[in-house]
């Protein structure tokens, strides 16, 4: 392992985080919530720690795959730990574990909170919560690749470790160019969303924070009743559309710039994404129409909840805990699938389901024609056996971690629905689950131990397991 290089990069992550923290600092000065000392101290600590680490001078400047994975896992832990400092200094949280949980929930774009009343928080803290979604959505390492000149070609492994999907890849030959294009698309879409939300009638502060939450598919909001608290239909529709858009593979947007519209329209994952969203909305609308005044209100709530859950944002306009079982089951299904690979959303990702469905079909065919040769293909390209087996392995790890975490959470004897959905919502970075962790509930009642387990699930889910799991192998700590 190239420790010097790893720590140098983590130093740079911390310095960038210090830079990002200047924004909530400015907000806290503008709104005068009295939380600026918390940010000042945090920035000081971050800058000091970051500068010391960044001063390291590694001899060998090449990343191996293993280095990149360790960097990704380790820097996300550091990012979250240091990101918890403002919460801790502000004094609104009960313990440091709570602060870390909130921070990890922010960066991993989960959006589950330990706070029972967010409306009393000062504006700076609220801004930092939502802004951490935006940073975590596209990823801080991708940002570093985009801005740091000393990063070389081998850092493609960094991009792989942090991006989502079975085989994340570059969209243009140059890695830095790729990272820049991704962030440009991300930034532009966020700006458009901010403007639209402002036009829809949200305050300038709410437009910013909610846009960050939607863009990163996070889910922190500024009211206790989530988006339902604004009771603004236009804003809800805008968010519904954008939550859907941020769940699409970003490299597909790039094909639009190349005027390859057919490639965009023929993408199998996008088609299935759209199909699942429409089907889920229809089922739930019919299923819940009795609970609301008429079909239109049912449609309004079902479409918002469906896009919110499948994109793993976790916003709510109504308490879906009170919905019939069928609707709740559909939502749990959506929590597992998540959206498209290469988006800012979480979950298992639809492309993995498609790959395994097709692999299963090929295997079934072999029972009837043992000698038949058929390959799994996606969008007309053959999927290598390597990727198929990695995908299957991903499923195994997802469910293995799910069951182990569920066992650990169950120690404190909460009801099974709450416990199970809390783990799914954390692993898939959704946020709210059902029962006591439902849209109107929160994670405050969990013990510190459960909070640590769930925090692990959130980071593991965001990094798609491997970067975090390598930290627990002995190889990662051998020279």
């Amino acid at each position, binding site marked *: 392992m190239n420790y010097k290089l790893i720590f140098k990069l983590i130093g740079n992550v911390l310095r960038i985080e210090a830079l990002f923290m200047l924004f909530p600092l400015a907000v806290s000065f503008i709104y005068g919530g009295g939380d600026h000392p918390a940010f000042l101290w945090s920035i000081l600590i971050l800058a000091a720690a970051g500068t010391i680490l960044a001063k390291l001078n590694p001899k060998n400047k090449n990343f191996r795959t293993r280095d990149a994975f360790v960097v990704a896992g380790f820097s996300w832990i550091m990012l979250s730990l240091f990101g918890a400092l403002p919460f801790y200094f502000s004094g609104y949280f009960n313990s440091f574990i709570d602060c870390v949980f909130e921070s990890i929930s922010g960066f991993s774009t989960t959006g589950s909170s330990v706070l029972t009343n967010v409306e009393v928080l000062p504006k700076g803290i609220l801004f930092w919560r939502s802004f951490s979604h935006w940073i975590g959505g596209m990823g801080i390492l991708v940002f570093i690749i985009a801005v740091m000149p000393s990063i070389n*070609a*081998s850092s*493609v492994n960094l991009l792989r470790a942090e991006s989502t999907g079975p085989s994340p890849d*570059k969209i*243009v*030959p140059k*890695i830095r*160019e790729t990272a820049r294009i991704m962030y440009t698309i991300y930034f532009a879409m966020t700006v458009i969303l901010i403007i639209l939300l402002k036009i829809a009638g949200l305050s300038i502060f709410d437009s910013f924070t909610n846009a960050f939450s939607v863009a990163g598919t996070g889910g922190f909001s500024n009211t206790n009743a989530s988006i339902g608290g604004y009771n603004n239909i236009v804003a809800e529709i805008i968010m519904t559309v954008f939550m859907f858009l941020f769940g699409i593979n970003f490299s597909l947007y790039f094909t639009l710039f190349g005027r390859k519209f057919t490639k965009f329209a023929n993408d199998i994952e996008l088609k299935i994404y759209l199909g699942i969203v429409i089907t889920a909305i229809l089922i739930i609308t019919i299923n819940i129409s009795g609970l609301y005044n008429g079909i239109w209100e049912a449609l309004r709530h079902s479409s918002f909840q469906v896009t919110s859950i499948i994109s793993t944002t976790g916003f709510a306009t109504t308490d879906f805990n009170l919905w019939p079982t069928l609707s709740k089951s559909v939502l749990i299904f959506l929590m597992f699938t998540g959206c498209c690979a290469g988006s800012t959303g979480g979950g298992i990702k639809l492309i993995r389901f498609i790959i395994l469905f097709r692999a299963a079909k090929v295997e079934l065919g072999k029972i009837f024609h043992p000698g038949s040769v058929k390959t799994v293909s996606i969008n007309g390209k*053959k999927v*290598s056996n390597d990727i198929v087996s990695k995908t299957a392995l991903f499923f195994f790890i997802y469910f293995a971690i799910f069951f182990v975490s569920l066992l650990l959470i169950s120690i404190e004897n909460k009801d099974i629905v709450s416990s199970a959905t809390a783990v799914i919502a954390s692993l898939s970075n959704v946020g709210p689950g059902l029962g006591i962790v439902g849209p109107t509930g929160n994670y405050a009642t969990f013990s510190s131990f459960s909070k640590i387990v769930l925090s692990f699930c959130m980071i593991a889910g965001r990094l798609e397991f491997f970067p975090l799991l390598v930290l627990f192998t002995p190889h990662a700590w051998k020279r």
Partner: protein
Amino acid sequence: MKIIVVGCGKIGYTIAKVLSEKEDIHVTVVDNNPNIFNKAVEPIDVIFISGNGANEKTLIEAGAKDADLIVSTTNADELNVLCCIMAERLGTKHSIARVRNPEYMLEYNKLWKDLGIDMVINPERQTAREISRILRYRAADDIVTFIGERVELVSFKVSETPEYFVGKSVSQVFDSNMGILLAIVERENQALIPNGDFIFKESDIIWIMGRPSQIMKFFTLIKRRSKKAQEIMVIGGGKITHYLVELLNRHTTKANIKIIEKDRNKCESLCEALSSSSLERHCLFIHGDGTNEELLIDEGIDRMDACVCLTDRDEENVFISLYAMRRGVKKIITKINYIHQNMAKNLGLWLGNIITPQDITAKTVIRYVDGLSGAVGRNIITVHQIYSGDDGNVEAIEVQVNKKAKCIDMPIKKLRLKKGILIGCISRDFDVIIPSGETQIRIGDRVIIISKNNDIRELDDILES
């Protein structure tokens, strides 16, 4: 600039790797073996597309419609030509094809142009040309020429004539009226730009620059023999040998060449192919194993001026070279395909000249690319990479001075040069000037710049900003 490289073997990989390291060059690699991606392409900054390079769909996916250059380097000559023609028809502006069968070599390059191919690269022939160049200039180990061969940049090892250098400083060895400029010194995997007090060590490799005649004088002064190789032994009879014999015959009629080849059929076909020329008197084809000590002694390896190892196997080449060195052969050229050059150097096997066909070919392609990008207003004429090691690269760059340059009409000592920049020779009106502190660069000059780890795109890039 967008470049498509078809075929990711040794040559294609080297070309893609070197090109992708440049800031503004976007490389797409096409190969029909998808597993190549994990093995080779992953660590370099390119996009990989699996497919046949002559397939219309693959080419379009690789961006052939708006690419600036396609370099086709697969094993099959015919496929390379087809790739280039198709890409050119689709809209790619320039094309380079690898063609290596001697029977396809055309007398008239115009025919290739008519086919739509701008340049043909033949690694074997280029390697042979490189070898023949080294054989002709026996005094120097490596040589690069500038300004229509009026200036040479040559390297040699101190260890061969240590009495003139070891323990002496630069100002003691190099006199200002010698007409020679000391460019860089390679020492223990580092390239140093020395000043006057620099003391030479035995393991150093020195690069000097000047007019050929001055360099010849200098070599006479330090008693380095500079006569051409007369007796040459070539081991291995492949395509490179074919081209090498042809080239040596063209340049040095006096040289006697002995070729040792294991495969009888190869021996015969080579003999047949070369019999038409007037070589027969000077060439001797021997069927035998080059690793057989008795055979080598029988054929007089002790009397040889030079030994060139060109078998297909790197290990054999290295072995025979080491043996030849032990037997006292002065000039040894070793072809290495797979083993990394630096690895051989680090093992302490300083074998004289190591030749790597893919590097030579990559250099040619890069020079072509530099020409394409430098064509508009940048005034860089040629770039030669003369050193590459742990601490970076050293390039020798020939620049035409145009009106816009900031550093003209100023004594050189007043210029604030970047670290790792040395102003080499200046060519003015058919004269070659070795600059001193008072020398000024003027409009119309051609300047050769030695640059370590700097990205020089125009003359003013040498100045501290």
